[in-house]
């Protein structure tokens, strides 16, 4: 139906842009281009002449798009924002997800509702993925520090691994800290005393 719509993605994050592009392709939108070079953003947009522009909110170049609302020699085709004033919920969902959408003037918003919904859900999925990755990395580095602290205690106090862990846990409970924090202090102290 509307799969011929010309969509431009402005996102400096290659992974998120790929996730979004894949989603759009799966939904049948094949005419999708990603712009990663910000220096000539407006020129690229004009040469691609898109119907829809999707841009991430961490991108300072969002203000460049504000120029397309203006009437001037530099602006060839006026662009309007997709969501209008009555769509407070849609704006909120988009901003929460970290994305903004623009369409050429005159395009009916029903025609791209699906695109925006998809965009929001992919952006949210990406944010979840990033959080999970961060948590996994934190957990990994915490585990490494705890292992090192256990090793130090086992050597210094001549105790078993289970006892070393119990010591860390008890101290953490007494001082109302995380085990990883106590472990880090042990590692730091051991390095100082080397």
């Amino acid at each position, binding site marked *: 139906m509307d799969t011929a719509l010309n969509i431009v993605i402005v996102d400096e994050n290659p992974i998120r842009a790929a996730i979004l592009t894949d989603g759009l392709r799966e939904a049948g939108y094949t005419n999708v281009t990603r712009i990663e070079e*910000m*220096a*000539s953003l407006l020129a690229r947009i004009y040469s691609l002449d898109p119907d829809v522009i999707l841009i991430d909110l961490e991108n300072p170049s*969002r*203000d460049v798009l*504000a120029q397309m*609302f203006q009437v001037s020699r*530099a602006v060839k085709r006026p662009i309007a924002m997709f969501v209008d004033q009555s769509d407070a919920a849609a704006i909120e969902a988009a901003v929460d997800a970290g994305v*903004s959408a623009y369409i050429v003037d005159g395009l009916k918003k029903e025609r791209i509702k699906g695109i925006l919904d998809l965009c929001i859900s992919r952006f949210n999925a990406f944010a979840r993925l990033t959080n999970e990755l961060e948590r996994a990395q934190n957990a990994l580095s915490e585990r490494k520090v705890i292992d090192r602290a256990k090793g130090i205690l086992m050597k210094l106090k001549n105790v078993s691994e289970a006892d070393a862990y119990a010591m860390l846990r008890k101290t953490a409970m007494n001082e109302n800290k995380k085990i990883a924090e106590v472990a880090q202090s042990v590692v730091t102290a051991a390095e100082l005393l080397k």
Partner: protein
Amino acid sequence: MSGDSLRIGFIPLADASALIIAADKGFAAQEGLSLDLVREVSWSNVRDKLNIGLFDAAHLLAPLAIASSLGIGHFKLPLLVPFVLGANGNAITVSPALYSALALAADGDLTDPKNSAQALARVVAERRKKGAGPLTFGMTFPFSCHNYLLRFWMAAGGVDPDEDVRLVVLPPPYMVDSLSSRQVDLFCVGAPWNAVAVELGIGHILHFGGDIFARAPEKVLAVRAAWSANRDDVLKRLISALGRAADFINDPNNLDEVAALLAAPNRIGVAPEIIQRTFKGRLRIAPGGAFRADPDYILIGREGSARPEPTHAAWLYAQMVRWHQAPLSPDLLAAAKACFRSDLYDLAVGNHSAPEANLSAAPLDRIGAFAGPAFDADDVAGYITAAKVAFANR
């Protein structure tokens, strides 16, 4: 009264400093307010997050606050401005190549904007004759003093900003790169980007913003009109905290501490020396060359500049009309004036600093443009006509 928490969006620029000092030096806490300042990357983001209520208040371009209130360029979102966070603070920086061309074409001292604007007209004419493409000028947002400042200046020399040059929006952090890669020949932006270009040897500061308009309302504190409706007291305390923060910033004895607080990575995040030079208005204007000092380079609340003058709102609206961003209508003019709430400011700041006494330092028409007719808030149509006649004389 204690425990009121406000989430406020800002762009890391020198004129966000009253907000930052109010939050980080305890002036807000003294008023029982806790300010959660959120650093943003674009004015579009600040506006949208204020719009949907993610922010209670925002550091905003003064013209953007009016455009939002009038529903120009975007959705209509009635805003109130109870405090002007900064006046002036911009500069025009040109590439070494354009600087040489202007110097060659100038009939008289290039530091006089009349001369530089006429020199620009000659350079533009020369380029056209040779079939060279138009010069490209960068500014920060369609609804910004940077845009109006550049347009006013070049129009005074007979250069049509919409036909004779290419005027493009660039995010401030990209300005310097764009100048060095010759994507733009000139830009108008706030601190510290002009100084950065000069230090890198890729730009000359041609003018301080104050050369074009002696007093221009640059950034404001904006809140949604609907939000403010039942929050008189919170608003009053916020304005009061901002007033005290501005006073603190303007005491030279505090400059080291202020610059150190502002330099924090989650605040403005640039070297304290650059912030100090900005506040002192002391900038190197040519690579390896002389410094220029102007105490009015940037004003954070000094000389009554924090008071939102309806005259200033009318003047900003007049710039929008002059450059075809807005139609001329008495209703829109009245709505623009109504955004700038000097009454709320006076109520909160009271006799803490009498605005009338302080305004004696300001220009008669409150703007002090280097050319063209004096501004008259009661006759915006007449002002625009007069400005247009001056432009058509090219």
